[in-house]
């Protein structure tokens, strides 16, 4: 391979990005060296097994990826503003929508959700950490290096360009010559393995590590949704693993799974992709439902209406999510019987979802609603998600879907569910749990600016797309001709996208502003919360709770406050606390995965084997490791508790 092929060349945008990347890296290295922070970085972050720190790192990555995916989106909107625009060429546009989709789903929505669940779930169930802290670190670093591998395709080798669904035969060697789709296959594989381990980890954590008294039906709703999400991850991600492996074999070793000759079958890819892909949608939406439940209940000042029905409906949604995948390709001609069956199962999902909507509404009824930023995001979710939901039901009707399929109607629908669902939830959760993560509150005034800009922008951007779809505009068109009547609505959509971009900038400024001037949270409970995460200090000491809390009912902390005036810790109840040791191995093993993956992408098999050997070495070392963690003595706990409550 020539160097000119190795580095992506030819576009001023790319060169500018190259320069920006190099400058940022130099800047980071300089700052770390100048302030002598390398050791701190290694000891406190890169080797940590603390679920709260891991969660924070997930969220930082997610916000960075939101930026990257958002820039992709703005570039696309700019190109589509007017007919026959020459802002981006076809190839560049194709790469951008591919990376936009992949990044937003897998490297933005997933890590944001996983970050929040890392921070919150052990606190909500009154645990010291997750069941497998070492594995948790490995999960994060695999995700991180998977995402890194995917992102460097932008400057090294070239981005994938076959859509985030990577349908064959378009994604085969024959039609995608470059390494772009190798990146897709390998990077998603690496981060997917991390996600699978997260699923197992949190399932065991929730099932086995709850505080005494916390029966399943006393679990906070967010924890419930994570439990069910873990089940989805555990059974859906192996399907992706296999699909990506088959893709890798087809692209690197010339096998015939999805090829056009020797019996290969491109439809099989679509089938496998969506067996994973549909549960994946629920993997990012169920936790969102959990976040909204927590926020709505807290700021309405009431317990969640119809808790049991809420639990039942998430179980129902999760069950149905595995038997609806064909609705993503009704138009492949599987026949009316198949389409009808999957049409009905898909529509059935609307029933438990409707139950949830009404329970949220009735949680508001008779409440005392405080319009905080977190609450605004959660309230805005309801009407916007309903628009996305009802259009989803329309799409589920197979015969009608033939008219919506792959059109902008579909684009509008899934952005209405994914943005109004997942993204609003991430923002709600971020504002809600921010004091718990960092000990200070995000500025409310700036938060509301972000909310209104983003929410209004979102509607202006995506609502017209329903009509563009009905006018015959299909997704993934890099341009369109004049005289189709699509221009006015496209202009409107671009304006909306710009507003969303401004909203994001305000959010970033808010993070900076609040870190400097934000109100410190001394109580640990700034929102008058209901669940156990508010019973401990903000930010919590690394062992979370000095003694394990005892749960008496749903909304455990609320009950404690009513009955005992708060979470009472008597010094004589303190016992030495067992904690896991930090380890650098998850980090360097993930580096080895990255190296192996990079080797596979470029078919440098020697490099891939070297990486693989280091992975095996890491596993062997882990097997022989005899580290049982350490105990924190009682005096140390007392000292830390005093320091934490002083807000040091």
């Amino acid at each position: 391979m020539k160097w000119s092929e190795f580095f992506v060349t030819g576009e001023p945008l790319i060169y500018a990005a190259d320069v920006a990347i190099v400058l940022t890296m130099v800047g980071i290295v300089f700052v770390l060296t100048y302030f002598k922070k390398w050791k701190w970085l290694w000891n406190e972050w890169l080797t940590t097994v603390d679920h709260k720190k891991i969660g924070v790192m997930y969220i930082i990555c997610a916000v960075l990826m939101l930026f990257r995916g958002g820039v992709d989106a703005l570039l696309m909107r700019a190109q589509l503003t007017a007919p026959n625009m020459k802002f981006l060429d076809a190839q560049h546009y194709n790469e951008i929508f591919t990376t936009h989709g992949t990044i937003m789903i897998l490297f933005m929505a997933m890590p944001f959700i996983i970050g929040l669940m890392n921070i919150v779930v052990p606190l909500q169930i009154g645990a010291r950490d997750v069941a497998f802290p070492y594995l948790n670190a490995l999960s994060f670093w695999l995700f991180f290096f998977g995402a890194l591998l995917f992102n460097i395709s932008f400057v090294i080798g070239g981005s994938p360009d076959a859509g985030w669904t990577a349908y064959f035969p378009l994604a085969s060697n024959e039609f995608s010559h470059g390494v772009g789709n190798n990146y897709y296959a390998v990077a998603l594989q690496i981060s997917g393995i991390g996600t699978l381990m997260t699923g197992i980890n949190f399932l065991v954590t929730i099932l086995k590590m709850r505080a005494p008294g916390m029966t399943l039906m006393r679990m906070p709703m967010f924890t419930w949704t994570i439990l069910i999400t873990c089940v989805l991850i555990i059974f859906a991600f192996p399907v992706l693993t296999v699909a990506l492996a088959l893709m890798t074999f087809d692209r690197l070793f010339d096998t015939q799974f999805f090829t056009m000759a020797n019996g290969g079958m491109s439809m099989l890819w679509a089938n496998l992709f969506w067996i994973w892909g549909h549960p994946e949608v629920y993997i990012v939406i169920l936790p969102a439902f959990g976040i909204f439940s927590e926020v709505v209940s807290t700021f309405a000042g009431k317990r969640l209406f119809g808790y049991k029905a809420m639990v039942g409906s998430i179980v129902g949604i999760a069950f149905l999510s595995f038997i609806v995948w064909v609705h993503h390709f009704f138009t492949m001609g599987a026949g009316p019987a198949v389409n009808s069956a999957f049409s009905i199962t898909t529509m059935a999902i609307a029933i438990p979802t409707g139950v949830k909507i009404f329970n949220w509404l009735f949680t508001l009824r008779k409440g005392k609603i405080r319009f905080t930023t977190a609450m605004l995001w959660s309230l805005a979710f309801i009407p916007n998600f309903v628009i996305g939901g009802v259009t989803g039901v329309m799409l589920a009707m197979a015969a009608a879907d033939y008219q919506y399929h792959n059109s902008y109607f579909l684009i509008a629908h899934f952005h209405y569910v994914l943005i109004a669902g997942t993204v609003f939830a991430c923002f709600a959760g971020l504002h809600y749990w921010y004091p718990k993560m960092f000990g200070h509150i995000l500025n409310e005034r700036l938060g509301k600016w972000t909310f209104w800009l983003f929410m209004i922008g979102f509607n202006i951007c995506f609502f017209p797309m329903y009509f563009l779809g009905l006018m015959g505009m299909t997704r993934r068109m890099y341009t369109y001709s004049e005289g189709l009547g699509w221009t006015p609505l496209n202009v409107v959509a671009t304006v909306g996208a710009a507003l969303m971009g401004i909203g994001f900038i305000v959010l970033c400024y808010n993070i900076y502003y609040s870190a400097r001037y934000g109100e410190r949270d001394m109580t640990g409970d700034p929102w008058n919360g209901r669940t156990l995460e508010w019973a401990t200090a903000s930010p919590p000491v690394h062992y979370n709770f000095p003694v394990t809390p005892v749960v008496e009912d749903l909304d455990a902390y609320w009950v404690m406050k009513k009955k005992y005036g708060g979470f009472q810790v008597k010094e004589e109840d303190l016992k030495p606390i067992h904690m896991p040791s930090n380890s650098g191995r998850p980090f360097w093993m993930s580096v080895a995965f990255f190296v192996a993956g990079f080797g596979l992408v470029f078919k440098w098999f020697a490099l891939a084997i070297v990486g693989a050997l280091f992975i095996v070495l890491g596993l062997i070392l882990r097997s022989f490791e005899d580290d049982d963690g350490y105990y924190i003595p009682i005096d140390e706990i007392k000292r830390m508790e005093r320091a934490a409550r002083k807000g040091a």
Partner: protein
Amino acid sequence: MGANGHHESFPWKHIIGFVLSLVLTFAALWVALSSGLPLKAVIVIIVVFAVIQASLQLFMFMHVNESDSGRIQTFNMAYSFFIAIVVVAGSIWVMQFVL
């Protein structure tokens, strides 16, 4: 707590499981290659034999239902088999028109 009472002096459970596995394997082989049954019947019978044999492994050798997590483990395996059936049967059904 089934993990507790394992004090028998002879591994009867294992031997019975092993013998049954061998019987089922040879029976499946015979049904497939020498029974002369119609194809559909052959498929049904050998799949049923396979499922029985898999359950033997799970219960006789792996003690899926033992320990304080026995119910979770059993439910987990049952659900994973459900997913397996959905994936396999679903894929075949969806794509039978091109098979």
